């Protein structure tokens, strides 16, 4: 390499922005992943649970005697045995004023509150034996009346979903500007609609898994936990079981998908820890798929009434929205079940200049599985309601969907901008994204093709949907509400004696590529190759504490932390090199594994030599020299409370108007996540996210009957999106870095999910438009489409 090359490459941060492949992926490709479900420890016991078969009832009797005698069984626990060891948890936060939720504990005590509520825990030598014994536990429950429907639950004489509640209302809030009513009164056009968004669930391919291992001799609790937030669980286990935090170690090895589902507290994980504390033996619980459906959090479950006011030119004047979120018998812990609805009412109309707004949120208890934060919290709902109404308005005005959006998005030169719901946007790029999408999808040609096919009785539809995504959350999210959930992340970067780099960081990896981007960022600060940076994540004993993975923070916050730690270490190395080389550190730089002359790029000494001297010959260094070669940094965003990103999606569908079957033909996304650290990984985050948005738009739904039984709680009956039904996804980018950080990266993990569903919804409605038919409920099943078409 010429000196010139070295120089410019170093200046340009040679690895940030490159499509580096994920080194860790090789293990998985060889079948060498190590998931919690793979872990086996000496003397380990397997747990299985006896669960309530009904949605609401009073426990009359639990008889465990036969189960205790069953072969292989070591112990059978009920609430009486386990609950006293654990301080109850309550899923409320202070910043959601006057929200309520009943306290929870490990096993159901007197009442069962949803079908699936764990009542007894069996510990046996094998899972099969534990399941055998579960069948022998005699459970006598007197069935009570369940709250199933949210509207009914709010009526005065409805039964309460949990004991101790005054009403089934968990939380209510109203958000409004001064002139909403005037805006509607003076509007040339008002479009409106009632929307229903079904419940769905994460269905991570690896179910929730935990191995709790308490060693009484050292008073050490080690929990191997398939989670995205190990520090949060370290804190919870320590506080709720009265243990010293330093003796609680949570290790999240490979995690087979999480998507927000694996950061909530669940009864079964607490039971495994409680049982291990009691027995002094490792206890393993791996949810089987049936248990996943009735214990993993569900998502969404909204009923929304909304209307939008526009002037004669199609300028959006105001929206008025009423969202009811239905959440199960409790609000989840420690993040609550209110954040979803809160984001729904705050993200309405987010891409638009809309001056006025009123949003009303009611969060309602019912006797079903709890709902809570799942990938793209609240976004798909807000986006769907907004964009469906914008399309309706476009149709009313006879304006093209692109045109009406072009008239209303916040112009790219109008930032900073504060939305009607109070969000501050630093800088977004809706206009650039609209233009780019139009080119990317060849919109005019698609419209021509659509018209030609319609002549032949083939009904295609095109739907578009701009979106705004919340990323890089600071303490405003949870911390201000009193939750012990970290908004900062930490990194420790070290130079090894042989001149390589190790980075221990609090953000975690579930396959997004966190470790890869961190290695790229650190590599650029230290002038090494990413392969020379070993990144460690997911172990509370060996990595600094931080928020880990939630609400899109890996790149924006984790990346910035790594960058700052890397720069700090760079400073240390240069200072040391300056002392060794008798040079001014300001004249030195790092490149290609060497300390180089900052001006000329000439190599002065290898990093390995720095490592060697600092480690083995510190005696040769001046007295006060810092030979630690270790830098720690913790970073939390402090400018804007969140960094918003934006983008736009489009969907092309074909509707079989006789059968109601929708085929997704193609999907497009133009995304602006700020500085792109690794384009390959960004695109795959978007694709995965899109499919997670399309699933619930067409297939995924947790169905309940009128008694509160989930009727499709298996992977044979709950329809996840599969390869044949999902489209190819074309992606384009606009890059608007945030000035809040040095790195300039924002999040991208939720963008795909935010708008994919409504792009498809708008496309289906476009296809149905010749029939004056419209669908406002997801998933868009053949039945619902046929109903919209008047066939049923």
């Amino acid at each position, binding site marked *: 390499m010429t000196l010139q090359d070295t120089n410019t490459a170093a200046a340009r941060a040679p690895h940030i922005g490159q499509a580096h492949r994920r080194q860790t992926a090789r293990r998985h490709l060889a079948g060498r992943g190590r998931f919690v479900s793979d872990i086996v420890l000496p003397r380990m016991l397997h747990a299985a649970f006896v669960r309530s078969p009904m949605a609401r009832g009073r426990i009359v009797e639990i008889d465990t005697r036969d189960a205790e005698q069953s072969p292989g069984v070591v112990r059978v626990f009920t609430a009486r045995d386990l609950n006293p060891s654990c301080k109850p948890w309550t899923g409320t936060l202070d910043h959601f004023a006057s929200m309520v939720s009943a306290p929870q504990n490990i096993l159901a005590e007197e009442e069962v509150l949803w079908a699936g509520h764990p009542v007894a825990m069996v510990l046996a030598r*094998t*899972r*099969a034996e534990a*399941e*055998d014994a579960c*069948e022998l536990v005699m459970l006598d429950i007197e069935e009570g009346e369940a709250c199933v429907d949210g509207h009914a639950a709010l009526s005065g004489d409805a039964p309460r979903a949990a004991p101790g509640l005054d009403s089934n209302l968990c939380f209510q809030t109203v958000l409004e500007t001064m002139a909403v009513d005037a805006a509607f009164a003076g509007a040339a056009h008002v479009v409106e609609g009632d929307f229903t968004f079904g419940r769905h669930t994460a269905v991570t391919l690896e179910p929730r898994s935990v191995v709790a291992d308490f060693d009484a001799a050292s008073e050490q609790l080690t929990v191997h936990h398939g989670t995205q937030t190990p520090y949060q669980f370290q804190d919870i286990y320590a506080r709720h079981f009265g243990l010293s935090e330093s003796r609680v170690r949570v290790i999240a090895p490979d995690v087979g998908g999480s998507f927000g589902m694996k950061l909530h507290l669940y009864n079964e994980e607490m039971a495994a820890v409680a049982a291990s504390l009691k027995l002094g033996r490792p206890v393993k619980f791996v949810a*089987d*798929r*049936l248990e996943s459906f009735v214990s993993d959090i569900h998502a969404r479950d909204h009923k929304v009434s909304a209307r939008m006011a526009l002037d004669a030119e199609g300028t959006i004047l105001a929206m008025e929205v009423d969202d009811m979120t239905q959440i199960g018998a409790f609000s989840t812990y420690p993040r609550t079940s209110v954040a979803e609805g809160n984001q729904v009412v705050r993200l309405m109309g987010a891409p638009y200049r809309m001056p006025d707004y009123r949003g009303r949120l009611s969060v309602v208890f019912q006797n079903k599985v709890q709902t809570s934060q799942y990938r793209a919290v609240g976004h798909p709902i807000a986006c769907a309601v907004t964009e469906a109404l914008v399309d309706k308005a476009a149709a009313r005005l006879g304006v093209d969907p692109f045109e009406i959006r072009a008239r209303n998005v916040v112009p790219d030169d109008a930032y900073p901008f504060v939305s009607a719901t109070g969000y501050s946007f630093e800088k977004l790029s809706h206009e650039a994204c609209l233009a780019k999408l139009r080119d990317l999808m060849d919109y005019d040609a698609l419209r021509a093709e659509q018209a030609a096919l319609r002549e032949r009785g083939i009904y295609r539809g095109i739907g578009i949907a701009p979106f705004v995504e919340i990323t890089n959350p600071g303490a405003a999210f949870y911390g201000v509400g009193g939750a012990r959930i970290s908004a900062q992340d930490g990194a420790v970067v070290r130079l090894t004696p042989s001149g390589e780099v190790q980075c221990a960081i609090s953000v975690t990896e579930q396959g997004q590529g966190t470790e890869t981007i961190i290695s790229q960022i650190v590599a650029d600060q230290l002038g090494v190759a990413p392969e020379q940076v070993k990144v460690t994540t997911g172990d509370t004993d060996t990595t600094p504490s931080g928020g880990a993975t939630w609400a899109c923070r890996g790149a924006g916050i984790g990346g910035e932390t790594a960058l700052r730690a890397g720069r700090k270490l760079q400073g240390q190395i240069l200072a040391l090199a300056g002392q060794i080389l008798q040079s001014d550190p300001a004249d030195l730089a790092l490149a290609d594994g060497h300390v180089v002359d900052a001006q000329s790029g000439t190599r002065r000494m290898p990093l390995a030599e720095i490592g060697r001297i600092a480690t083995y010959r510190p005696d040769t260094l001046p007295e006060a020299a810092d030979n630690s070669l270790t830098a720690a940094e913790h970073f939390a965003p402090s400018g804007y409370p969140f960094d918003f990103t934006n983008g736009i999606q489009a969907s092309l569908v074909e509707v079989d108007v*006789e*059968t109601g*079957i929708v085929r997704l033909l193609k999907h497009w996304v133009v995304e602006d996540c700020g500085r792109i650290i690794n384009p390959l990984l960004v695109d795959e985050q978007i694709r995965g996210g899109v499919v997670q948005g399309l699933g619930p738009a067409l*297939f995924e739904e947790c*169905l309940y*009957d009128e008694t509160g039984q989930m*009727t499709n709680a*298996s992977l*044979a009956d709950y*329809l996840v999106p*599969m390869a*044949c*039904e999902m489209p190819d996804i074309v992606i384009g980018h606009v890059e608007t870095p945030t000035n809040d950080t040095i790195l300039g990266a924002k999040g991208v993990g939720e963008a795909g999910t935010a708008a994919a569903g409504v792009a498809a919804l708008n496309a289906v409605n476009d296809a149905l438009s010749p029939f004056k038919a419209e669908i406002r409920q997801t998933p868009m*099943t*053949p*039945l619902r489409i*046929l109903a919209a078409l008047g*066939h*049923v």
Partner: protein
Amino acid sequence: MKSPAFDYIRARSVAHALETYRSLDGEGVYLAGGHSVVPSLTLRLQAPAALIDLSGIDALTGISLDDGWLRIGAMTRHAEVAADPMIRDHAHLFHLAAPHVAHPAIRNRGTIGGSLSLADPASEFPAVALALRAEMEVAGHDGVRRVKADDFFLDIYETAMDPGEILQAILVPPVRAGDVAVFDELARRRGDYAMVGAAVQAMVDAGRVADISIAFFSVGNKPTRAGAAESALRGARLDDATIAAAQSALDADLDPSDEPQMPASVRRHLARVLLGRLLGHLGTTA
């Protein structure tokens, strides 16, 4: 989702299987491909004392032609049904239907005999057997008997076989000149059990329907011959009016149950649509 404990016996012959079944006093369950039995065990829907594995019995395997009749051994896997040239030529409907049964890996294990014995009203093969007017070769302690498909499927998961009897083979009547087969189903995702499906075997002569048999699945408690629709078609020209008449006649043929996610009226509607498409397709195939 672990199965309850059971014993496992690998039957050496049909006689051995029958004998073993009898010795278990109603507590035995035959195991073919196991792709319905094993899930029902892991879901703990049944708890047999023993599984009697039929896969090692030679008499249940093989595909052969005998006097024009095609004999398909009960242990023939779905994947073989899809790929076998004799089935393609002499029982074309099975060939057409097989790729719709589940997914590739399941087709490597699931057997035609298991599918017919299970008599799941949502399954493809029972309807195909009806449309082909196939016969079932059933072995019991009193010997072997043949049961017409029309008499074989009685109710949901219920056939004319007595407990312990074994389905040895499926016998398909000789192909006639002019025979055409069409098959399709409406499923939400590839490989799913269908919302509605149908198998049609017809003889079309100079645009007229000389003979036809139509069997629907996923429309009620068992695979169902559409007798009224067949009558509307038999002897008629295959034109739009005839197709419409056949579609209306379906109302008399089908009695789907009302389910929250699929009201009977919707299933009837889908059945009419599917029949219309299949007959249109028949017109162009014949």
